[in-house]
């Protein structure tokens, strides 16, 4: 039955789908889609190179410490980093006493309970605590930021197309609306409270420029804190925050792939040996 009917019915079913598609082609609107300013003026991230790129890439601890300083003094005013704990900072070269001091001196305290009354309270952070965020909850965060929500930064470097280079480009990318754009798209405007930034998908971002001038932070190691330097350092730190096991992963990878290459060569030799003299 199936053997006889299948070759007859199949072309009919096929023709049905093909006709439906042809009809869809006929019916599709021929007017070209509206041109958007965000297609024309959006910029790809700048070419910024990091020490952790490539199969042998490693984090640069001095850069991560500088980046942490930028996060602490600039970003953390609005952005939380709830998945990173103070103790994790030992991995990027801070000593135990330094970590303890950083936790204790953090701008906001860790939520806790009053042990006597059970009422909500806060306390000084310990190395085992995660970074306390700047706002107690989302409503507070939105209320403080013109109804925009500053995203948590723990995974930001992995959660954006373009990664750390995108973040560094974005925070240094604020500009005036180009004259060309105004000419081509007279309707384009930057709504009040937003800022023009060609690296942002729709060109208008709620975040005010975070790095306004060179020397905004004073690096302890004497590195000149240009805006691009601060942006590069903090984006490297964000990559570490998002992928703390990167060095471990790449180191393990070299060993595993090396081992597998040797094992595969042996397997190939065994295969040729067994098939020796037998045509196939």
């Amino acid at each position, binding site marked *: 039955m199936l053997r006889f009917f299948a070759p007859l019915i199949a072309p009919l079913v096929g023709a049905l789908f093909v006709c439906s598609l042809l009809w*869809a*082609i006929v019916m599709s609107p021929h007017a070209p889609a509206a041109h958007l300013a965000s297609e024309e003026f959006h910029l790809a991230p700048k070419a910024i190179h990091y020490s952790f790129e490539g199969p042998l890439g490693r984090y640069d601890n001095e850069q991560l410490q500088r980046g942490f300083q930028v996060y602490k003094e600039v970003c953390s005013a609005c952005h939380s980093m709830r998945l990173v704990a103070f103790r994790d900072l030992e991995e990027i070269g801070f000593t135990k006493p330094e970590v303890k001091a950083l936790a204790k001196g953090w701008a906001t305290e860790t939520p806790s309970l009053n042990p006597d009354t059970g009422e909500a309270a806060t306390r000084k952070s310990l190395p085992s605590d995660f970074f306390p965020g700047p706002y107690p909850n989302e409503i507070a965060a939105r209320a403080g930021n013109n109804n925009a929500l500053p995203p948590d930064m723990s995974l930001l470097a992995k959660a954006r197309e373009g990664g750390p280079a995108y973040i560094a480009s974005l925070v240094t990318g604020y500009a005036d609306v180009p004259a060309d754009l105004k000419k081509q798209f007279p309707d384009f405007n930057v709504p009040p409270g937003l800022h023009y930034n060609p690296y942002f998908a729709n060109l208008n971002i709620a975040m005010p420029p975070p790095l306004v001038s060179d020397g905004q932070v004073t690096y302890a190691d004497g590195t000149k804190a240009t805006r691009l330097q601060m942006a590069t350092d903090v984006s490297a730190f964000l990559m570490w925050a998002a992928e703390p096991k990167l060095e471990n992963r790449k180191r393990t990878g070299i060993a595993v792939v090396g081992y597998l290459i040797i094992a595969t060569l042996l397997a190939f030799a065994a295969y040729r040996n*067994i098939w020796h003299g037998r045509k196939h």
Partner: protein
Amino acid sequence: MSFPWAAHYAPKNPFMRWMDEKLPLPRLVYNAVGAGYPVPRNLNYFWNFGVLAGAALGIQIITGVILAMHYAANGLVAFDSVEHIMRDVNSGWLIRYAHANGASFFFIVVYMHIFRGLYYGSYKAPREMVWLLGVVIFLLMMATAFMGYVLPWGQMSFWGAQVITGFFSAIPVVGEPIRMWLLGGFAPDNDALNRFFSLHYLLPFVIAAVIVLHIWALHLPGSNNPTGVAVQGPEDTVPFHPYYTAKDGFGLGVFLICFSLMVFFAPNALGHPDNYIPANPLSTPAHIVPEWYFLPFYAILKSFTANFLGVPAKLWGVMAMFGAILLLFFLPWIDRSPIRSGNYRPIYKKLFWVLVVDVLLLGYLGQAEVTPTVVLLSQLCAGYYFAHFLIVIPIIAKFETPLPLPNSISESVLHGEAAEAAPYGTAATA
């Protein structure tokens, strides 16, 4: 099981004799993947992918069982429990990246396996049942992979679940109630997450069981081969072990090298950045795309943009997407050409490569931003996909003149070298 000249299992010591009497498991293994299974001697590297798919399933089950020890299937904590695995569990990053990329590699080797079957006519008689069970495995894999992608409860997890369960709402009248029944609510939430986790843990073992049937059904007629010509005598075959165990060992090594390169050096290359943002029902991502291995079918879904014959466009799209896979069930009967191997089918061979390019193009179009050009190209490619299987194959099966087939596998391999043609075991000593 397959050929009369298959070597017979003979237990070598008293313990194995005792075992053979009480529970003949060693005999089963010997006959299935040991010296007792004669295999055509001319298999090329494309025949490695069946074993590799089995290995990929093994990797998924082992890494998956370990992940489940640390993962929590609850909407409030699922995302953080995955980050806990990445940051705090010993080598948790390795287990998770291996599992996430393992899914991609499972699909890569299965797609190679399927296209090998299409080119060499492995779906044709007497192996129809092998093919049917294979399509069942493919469907189970797609369901498992989809539910697995929901578990990290990131933005793409949530919105992917929203879109894919939304397919069911295209069914007239009962669609919406079915969708709500599947999800356990109006939108994906904790109930959906819980049942997806339960099924995601169950289905791989169902897949393993269907694989057993797949291999069982294969061993009755024996493996196909690049000539498509049936095995005629002992000179056409070699025992699976050691010949193909050795070749598969090498293939497995190459597979693991490619897999490791992804896991250790580009673990997020095949994922989507949005899935590192926790699920948020109030914020829709700009572009919702499924995992890469669903993209050709996603492109087919999106290419039906007009109502036709009173059927809404969305329903056409959903029918076409499922139809694109379900038509594979009928392929053994749609293609009536008696010639199996594409090597001897000049027209089919060319159209096979057109199909490969067509599917790759559909994959590209599935993730591309929707522009009029992209839509038109997907419509043409989707049209070719259906025309290829349902119209072109039945027609060329009737009108194509095949090239002359070799008389036997050994003839095609040996070109008349008589000593080589001796049955296995005699030539090696001669």
